């Protein structure tokens, strides 16, 4: 079988690009040159089998999460289930909700286990797993809408704070959403947890039955969607500000609940130009810092 995965260094000579099927990762590690090389070697060795492992259990990972189900075999799949399971009794969720974060986490964990680094991140299409050794920090750019490159601002993760995972979900993104949020960005202790939580909160930002929202059964768009015939958002007409507040309020209530359950550290919810922030974790709080002279982040 031919080598399917693509592994290459980006033009800056610092970041590594890993690509296989729908998985697209940007990896960067900081440390001694030798350490970075070893970390990249470990990451790419681990990476080449990830997609096959996931696809081997795809039928399972596309099923609704339930405590009665058996656990899957693959390490990434287990990360996905672990992240999605807390929501299983109350919400509709499949392990796929956490796939991007789980892949990022797995690759990051492989690097960190292989060698001592000062810091590292794996960015899986906007869902980011971060490693910080003591004293290190990481600056993240945040978008208001994933289809527009408007940067809401930046947030800084500090080693002393527990946040190591960032994820964004919304109906404009690559995966389908049951809600109408343009973007929900979540900070959590781990990337897979952030990914699952962002999905749940984005689903909750909603105005059920609103005529300006176009919804289509997910299977009509992609016959093998894990969302089956659930209605996913295809378009959101202009909403009056009361409606925007109402939808954001619904999402914020869910975010607040997850916060109190300890599942997330912070969340920023955006809808048609309005943003709500839930949670505050000291220095890693999700307050958008306006773009300064060097506002853009590596993410």
């Amino acid at each position, binding site marked *: 079988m031919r080598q399917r995965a693509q592994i290459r260094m980006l033009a800056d000579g610092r970041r590594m690009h890993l690509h296989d099927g729908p998985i697209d990762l940007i990896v960067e590690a900081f440390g001694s040159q030798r350490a970075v090389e070893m970390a990249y070697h470990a990451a790419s060795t681990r990476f080449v089998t990830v997609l096959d492992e996931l*696809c081997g259990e795809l039928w399972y990972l596309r099923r609704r999460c339930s405590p009665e189900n058996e656990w899957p075999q693959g390490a990434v799949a287990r990360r996905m289930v672990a992240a999605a399971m807390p929501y299983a009794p109350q919400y509709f969720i499949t392990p796929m909700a956490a796939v991007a974060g789980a892949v990022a986490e797995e690759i990051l964990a492989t690097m960190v286990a292989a060698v001592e680094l000062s810091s590292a991140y794996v960015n899986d299409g906007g869902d980011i797993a971060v490693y910080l050794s003591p004293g290190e920090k990481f600056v993240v750019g945040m*978008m208001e809408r994933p*289809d527009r490159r408007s940067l809401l601002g930046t947030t800084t993760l500090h080693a002393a704070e527990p946040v190591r995972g960032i994820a964004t979900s919304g109906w404009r993104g690559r995966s389908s959403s049951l809600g109408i949020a343009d973007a929900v960005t979540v900070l959590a202790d781990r990337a897979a947890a952030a990914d699952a939580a962002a999905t749940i909160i984005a689903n909750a930002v909603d105005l059920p039955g609103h005529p300006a929202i176009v919804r289509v059964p997910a299977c*009509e768009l992609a016959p093998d969607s894990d969302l089956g015939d659930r209605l996913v958002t295809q378009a959101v007409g*202009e909403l009056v500000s009361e409606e925007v507040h109402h939808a954001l309020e619904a999402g914020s209530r869910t975010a607040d609940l997850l916060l109190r359950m300890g599942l997330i550290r912070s969340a920023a919810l955006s809808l048609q130009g309005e943003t709500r922030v839930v949670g505050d974790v000291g220095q890693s709080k999700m307050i958008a810092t306006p773009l300064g002279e060097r506002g853009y982040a590596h993410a």
Partner: protein
Amino acid sequence: MADDAIRCDACPVLCYIKPGRTGSCDRYGNHEGKLVRLDPHVVLHRALERGEAVKPFLERGREWDGTLGSHGETFVTAIGAGTTYPDYKPAPFIISSQVEGVDMVTVVTEGIFSYCGVKVKIDTDRHLGAECSTVRAQGEAVGHVTTSEYGSQMLSLGGVRHLTGGSRHEGTATCETLLNLCNGKAVELKIDDGAKVVVQAGQPPIVDGVQEERMRVGCGSATIGMFAKQWFGKVDEVVVVDDHITGVLSEHQAGKLLGVPETGIKLKGRRSTPGRYFQVAEPGTAWGGTEIDDPLTILGKFNAKKAWPGLRLLMVSTTGEHHGYFELDEDLKPKEKELPVDLRESVARIKENCEPALCTVLFMAGAGGSLRAGVTENPVKLTHSVSDAFTRVTCGGAPVYVWPGGGITFMADVTRMPQDAFGYVPTPALVAPIEFTLKLADYAALGGYVEHVRPLSSLIAKDEGRQRVAARAENPWPLESGMKPATTVKSKKR
């Protein structure tokens, strides 16, 4: 499972993909039942002759022939370059190349434009619909009729209100219409209380099933004015037949000034001012946009007191496509004769002055602050640099007109771009290429991502799916130094 979906085997996810959709990777799609790799990245090559088949950028297993790289002969377009979606980062390609010893930088990205549309110019005098009438595609409102221009009807299609402000169907119909027009495909449009017109960039319009051939040089009256001197002395009377205004030389101001004597001619239709007649016949597709095949049917009897046997009469349509030469017999009845040699030239000149009727499509969009942020850390500096003409903007390598004022609002002729330069995202919004070219030093000065600049030669070493296409000869070469950018209006210094 839907029958029309296909199974993608590009990776083990094995997505079922419905027609017109992409798999979970967004890289492979179902195009009319076939699995296709989307968006090959287009690289213009100056040396390739136009019309030469598109070649793979670098065929597998073959050595690079060394023709690309340092001589400014290759220009990397944004077509298929990808956007920075979904994470925020510098534009996907920031390419340096040397042109006449100056380091040039081209920042290449595919912009996702919600604020975009097309302005369509349809060369026809035919009434397509009243100003402000809604233009529909697939029954959905996709734009409106705007102010007509000389000899042409104008449509304004797309824009953010139709793309994202209405129903999903309106949005997708608009997006599809724009995409097809921009990619040079034919689109059928229906104007409320007006015509059905098939529009395709660079092709004649088809109005209610009839293809337009030529734009008239002017109305019949204007044609009289333009050619009166050339006719004077060679012919006694000229009638220029036109659907809108038919002109008569002897009665027309231009004929009077020259001293052309009255001829006793009588026109059907409604006289507007001397020598100008409305409604000489019903509109149609024959003489001058009327329904008549025999021009004499629009004439009444010659006035016996004024006309004379042997009177020489030229009848010609406003496009010169139809003409007839007559002389009056003893009973003052026009008899067709061969067109005298000295009149042939004037008829030929009318025709020569009538350009082929075409549809032209200008893509118009605004590069938002966020797109500009992919070019420089301080987006407004890019705006200033563009308006001060230090930075050249191109669209798939084609020149653009940058509208003065704030932001970077530009227009580009879609026929000057490589094939299928446009894409879409289901938002719906159009994906269009946009490139910014400037000197490396200027790029650094405006806060560019200099650390992301890579030499052109680095592009050739990897990445399958890159297409090398011939640059269009009529386009200025995007990297040419000393070439003025398409914009000529300089903004005031801030």
